[in-house]
Structures are given as C-alpha cells and as structure tokens.
C-alpha cells in the first residue's frame, strides 16, 4: 500500500482522544490487583484442628523440589514432646525463597496436605538471609494480606476468560 498522508493525521486524532480518557494504570502499592484463587505464592504450613502440625517430616516435598530449596530435618515424636500426629515431625523446616520457583510440586508431593502455596506475592527482602523462611514463619499467618478474586468467578472447570471471549 502506498503511503497515505491522511492516515498520519488520523493518528494524531487518536492520540489526542486519549487525553480525555482515564488512564488505565493500576496504582500498585495502593491498589493491589486481586490474584486468581489458584495463584501460587508464598508457602504455608498447616496445623490440625487440635493444634498438632500436619507435617510429619517425610521430606517428600524436598525430594520433589526441582529447585532444591526445601530442607527438612525430622525427629521422633515422644510422649512428652508430641508435635505431629505421626511417628516423626519436622524439627527444622526451611524454604529458601530466593531459590523457589513456585512450581507447587511440594504441594503435590505432600501426603498430608501440610504444605500449600498461598496467595501472597509481596515477599521481597533487603538481604538473602531474610529470604530463608523457617518453620515458625511458614506456620504463622502471613502479615500482608493479598486480595483474592472471587472463587466462583474463576475457579470453574472452564476458565472464566475462555467462557467469556
């Protein structure tokens, strides 16, 4: 097609029209965009209802981890010190978040659903040492809350975006 001089003038009209529209930028730290319900973020370790840890220190998660970022040191439960319902519990459970690729294999490997990946994604720190999460940190409620999109809208067999496009 030969150059159309008028088309470049049309381009100016297009850019000028944008002046009167509201910018589509999402102002991030103030507005946190809701993540999908199955978003894989920061890990959580879970407790049973009676307060015992679900983790039994089997190290299957560490074996499944492709980034090799989980370290589990197990110890026998004793009647005086019962931490988990099984035979053993995880004395040390560390995840090196600077190596984690958030693939979720640990979650799949876990026979007791003790570890899951949460929705939190704001996990930057000022030093690498701070990125090694200990068992206490993983057991605790995350400090920063992330809004999660409506589960009914997205967590359907057919993804919402496929149904409506």
């Amino acid at each position: 097609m030969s150059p159309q001089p008028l088309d470049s003038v049309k381009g100016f009209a297009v850019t000028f029209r944008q002046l009167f529209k509201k910018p589509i930028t999402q102002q991030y730290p103030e507005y946190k965009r809701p993540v999908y319900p199955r978003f894989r973020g920061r890990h959580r370790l879970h407790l049973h209802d009676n307060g015992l840890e679900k983790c039994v220190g089997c190290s299957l998660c560490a074996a499944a981890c492709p980034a090799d970022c989980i370290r589990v040191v197990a110890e026998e439960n004793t009647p005086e010190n019962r931490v988990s319902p099984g035979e053993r519990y995880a004395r040390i459970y560390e995840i090196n978040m600077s190596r984690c690729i958030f693939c979720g294999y640990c979650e799949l490997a876990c026979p007791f659903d003790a570890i899951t990946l949460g929705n939190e994604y704001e996990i930057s720190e000022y030093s690498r040492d701070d990125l090694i999460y200990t068992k206490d940190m993983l057991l605790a409620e995350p400090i920063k809350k992330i809004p999660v999109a409506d589960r009914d809208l997205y967590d359907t067999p057919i993804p919402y975006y496929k149904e409506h496009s």
Partner: protein
Amino acid sequence: MREPWWISLIKAGVIVNLIMLAFAYTTWLERKLLGRLQNRYGPNRAGPYGLLQPFADLVKLVRKESFFPVAARHPLYIAAPIISMFTALAAFAVIPFGAGWQIWRYHVDGEIANVSIALILIFALGSIGVYGAIIGGWASQSKFSLLGSMRTCAQLVSYEVSLALSVLGVVLMGQSLNLVDIVNKQGATIWFFIPQLAGLMVFFFAMIAETSRPPFDLPEADTELVAGYHTEYGGMRWGLFQTAEYINLITLSALAVTLFFAGWHGPYAPLGPLWFLLKVFVFISVFIWIRASVPRLRYDQLMRFGWKILLPVATINAVITALLVVWVS
C-alpha cells in the same frame, strides 16, 4: 534610551534561572502529557501531581558517580557537555519576550541583549552547539559514540540549512535581522505565519530535527541505537546534554513564536510576556503530541526529507517572498 549595564546583568541572571526552571518543568510536562496521551499517569509520586519529579531527578543525577571511560580524552570529554549547555543558554539572550518597561527612572528592555543581527547570532550559536555533540562522541573514544556523533552532526548540519533558509522570508518581510524589529513589524502589520505559511512549516520540521526530538530523534534513538554521542556519559554530564537539548527546544519554540507569531503581541489584551509564554507553551505541547503520535524516521528517509523536500521548499519560498517584497514596495 539605553538601559544601564547592571540592569542587563540582573536580567541575565534572572532569565537564566527562569530558563532552567522552564527546562525542569518542560521535562515534567513532557512526561505527564506523554503519559496521558498514552493512557498512563506519568510521574505522580514525587509531590502533588509529581511536581517535584524534576528536582528528584536533579538530585539523582548530581549524586551519581561521575565515571568516565579510561580511554576518554579528558579535557574534551568534560568540555563537550559544557559547550552544548553554554550555547543553548546563550541563544536565549536575544529572544524578546516583552515590549520593555519603564521602572522608576530606568528603561528595562524586553530582552537581555538587543543585538542588530540577533537571528544570525542564534543560528551561529546553534552551529557551535553541534560541536558539543561531535566532540563528546569523539572524546569518548568509543566507536559507537563516534558513529553516533557522526549521525548526529550529519542530521544537525543538514537541517540547519533548511532552518536558516526558512526564515529568509521573514527577514525579507521584516526588513531586519533584529528580532525586536521583526516582532514590532508583525504587531504593526500582520503576523508572519499567514504570508509565510510555507516558511513556518519548513521551520517547524527543521526545528524538530534540530532539537533531535521524535520523529527525528536519530541522534538518540533510545529504543534501537541506545543513544548516540552521549552513550559514554553518565550522571550530570549526561544531564547537561539533556538540559541543552530541552533548552534548545524552548529557545527554538520561542524563536518560532517571535518570527511567525508576533512574540509578545496578542489579541484582546496586551498581556506582554504572558502571551509569549502561552505561545511557547502551545508550541512545546505540540512537540510532545508529535512525539506521542509518530514513529521514528529511517535514516535515509530523514536525509531525503531534509534535502529533497525541506530545502527546495525553503528556497522557493525565499525567492518568491523576495520577488513579492520587491514588487510591492
């Protein structure tokens, strides 16, 4: 009545600082307006509406480590941004922004220096400013900088020809090279953009190329060529090149307003400098609008446009204007 020398000195100090301030807020306006034209917000974190952004940038640039390449030719490497900056600032000295005022018993002119060949002075300073780019690229001792500076000066020199020729018509109609006389003539007769529309168009395009702004920003071409002559510069030395570029933009916008839109004259109210500021603001906004709307030219397109379209149009315009001026008088 001539104004005493110390008034000129005070005025020069004030104007230089005002120009620097205008530069700072031109960058702010550019980023803000460009953002809105592209459905973004632009800077909005430093101060209300991001108004402190220019100062944050300044602090950042000044505090940056002032490294230079080991192989760089030291005095010239330092001198290059200073040359660019100096010529950019000096050129504004002859732009008239007001009719002149009577303050107490002194007469204050509406420009820093009333030079009889002001127009030639501006173009001369612009030509010296090219040396900043040439020397900067060469003294960096990097082949990419050298190529960039060659690209830059080829463009600037080509478009300077059209730029100078395009104002010949105005000079012929104003019968003067003095910018004050030209403005007064426009105030008395007609704004020169009407009879000199072709001249204005050529001036406008050549001006975009001279200030190396998109779509003629081959000297920088941030996205594909990663800057040209100032690749090896960082911190405030780079900042000086950037400042010079923006001040050139302001100066040439002011020159366009002076030559074609009657400077401080305006309809309805004799607002003086306010009219002048308003017109310059409109010019700069249009430049930003152009930046948001058109892609960069290829290098051969740039050269073809400069030599095969702008130059003939400017020449024919000058010849016809000359004939008409002779015929009318």
